[in-house]
């Protein structure tokens, strides 16, 4: 995919390689790099995967690998968890006991 100068993009960079990481961390974390993602406006035309330069909202110039154009928020409420439904029903029944209300 082609991205154009001025597009709003997200870039990725490895900040610390595994061997550069601090000593006091669990093994699983020590085995992977410290990674960073930053968004900004692309300073030049490029393709996804290219090393690019962006200008962030605060005017910083940052270099990294282009990962996404118009990065999207994709998180959500997820799949429904039906157990939640039971909580209100149970509690309303307890409150109602002895009240003579339906």
């Amino acid at each position, binding site marked *: 995919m082609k991205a154009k100068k001025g597009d709003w993009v997200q870039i990725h960079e490895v900040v610390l390689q595994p061997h550069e990481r601090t000593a006091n961390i669990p093994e699983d974390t020590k085995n992977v790099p410290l*990674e960073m*993602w930053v968004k900004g406006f692309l300073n030049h035309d490029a393709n996804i995967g290219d090393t690019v330069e962006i200008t962030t909202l605060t005017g*910083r110039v940052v270099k990294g690998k282009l990962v996404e154009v118009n990065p999207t928020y994709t998180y959500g409420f997820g799949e429904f*968890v039906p157990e*939640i439904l039971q909580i209100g029903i149970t509690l309303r029944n307890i409150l109602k006991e002895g009240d003579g209300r339906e």
Partner: protein
Amino acid sequence: MSKDLSYQAVMARKNEIMKKAVGIDYSVFETGRIAFDYERMMRETGYSLQEIQRIQSSVGVGNTPLIELKNLTKLARKLAPKGKGARIFIKDEACNPSGSFKDRRASVSVYHAEKLGFKGVVAATSGNYGAAVASQAAMRNLKAIIVQECYDSRKIGQPEILEKQRKCECLGAEVIQLSVGPELFYMFLRVLEETGYFNASLYSPFGIAGVETLGYEIAMQCREKIGKDPDVVVVTHAGGGNVTGTARGLIKAGALDTKVYGASVDLSGLHMASDYDFNRKSFTTGHTGFGIPFATWPDRSDVPRSAARPLRYLDRYFTVKQGEVFYITEALAQLEGIERGPAGNTSLTAAFALAMEMDEDQVIVVQETEYTGVGKHHLSQLSFARKNGIDIRFGNPDEEVAGKNIILPEDPRLIKAREVDLNKLRRSYIKNCIDNYKVDYVTLEDVEFLAEDTKTDKEFVLSVLEQLNVKVE
């Protein structure tokens, strides 16, 4: 000449970077080998309560409603022995501009940054504080950068953190997203050095003094509504600022008999710096992974002397389970018609359990709520947990193991506030002081400081020092 940006080089410049970015010379408050003059630091570098009230009211922060939770109180009374069931009130902090009590902290830090002429502010946080800093910076036309621990090594993130990232961006801030690891601090220092912006630390005197209005308002609102001070205020405890600021505000209001209890979600067994564990927890703040280490070593924060010192103020400390907090979050929506974010309801969960043990004429105040919405919602968090292989079911919350299951109480009577032995934390804090300052003897001044900093007395401190083989000279 460009500066060396290697991990070691940047960390070695820490003190120099911090001094520029916070504008406080902490060394003037040092008084002993361990001791420092906490009250002098708060007085000379912070703002008075009246100044803070003025700053906050000018940006729409504070003066949030105190709401009586009548149905939850009624429920507690139905489940408790006769004569038990304290009245439960909640301070609806979600009504602040960015949706949490963190606006109180950010409002003072950002005001101070503007006053000192900084062009922007930086905060290292994956929590609500990011949105609060972004919001306050927007109001004052300052730039804001938020450094977040966001993803595991598969680029998978908690919906709660991803929502906080969106909110910061939608309030005009730049967000630097990182994978798991404490080296976030290194990136934070790099950004401070590169930009010359203000460090809007959660742990500066400004950040803590900003919360004092919360404790003060609780006392005033209780006097107005029920004609007396609350018996207990329950505070969700993570980094310690919420406890510290609220307790100091209560003291400034003269509510000296009000007890301050802390509450955290029990995440014992999960390592906070583990790439694997990162997405196996369902709370990203208000949990024991922050609560315990920040109580036993507050000066681990991003400033040399943290203004957040929870052991100074806590009367009791409790943990609750993840499943219990999700349950109470749903109960708050269903019985009170108030839908709020789960992390903020940690203290409500403890308060509900404690209310069942307290007398009917007593009053327990929950001092915060936080905003909710997609991502920051118990449905998002439970769904994400189930997708990551966490077993979710009804049962006895005592059997919950963080990272393996989430147990929703099969009966509301099973909701418990499990007490943490504060003396154990106090001993651990004193030991950390000795270890971290590498001292083999201490002064009388240090003993007095440690007694104040642990809310104990000289005898207690001396007995701990004796066990540690540390002499007093």
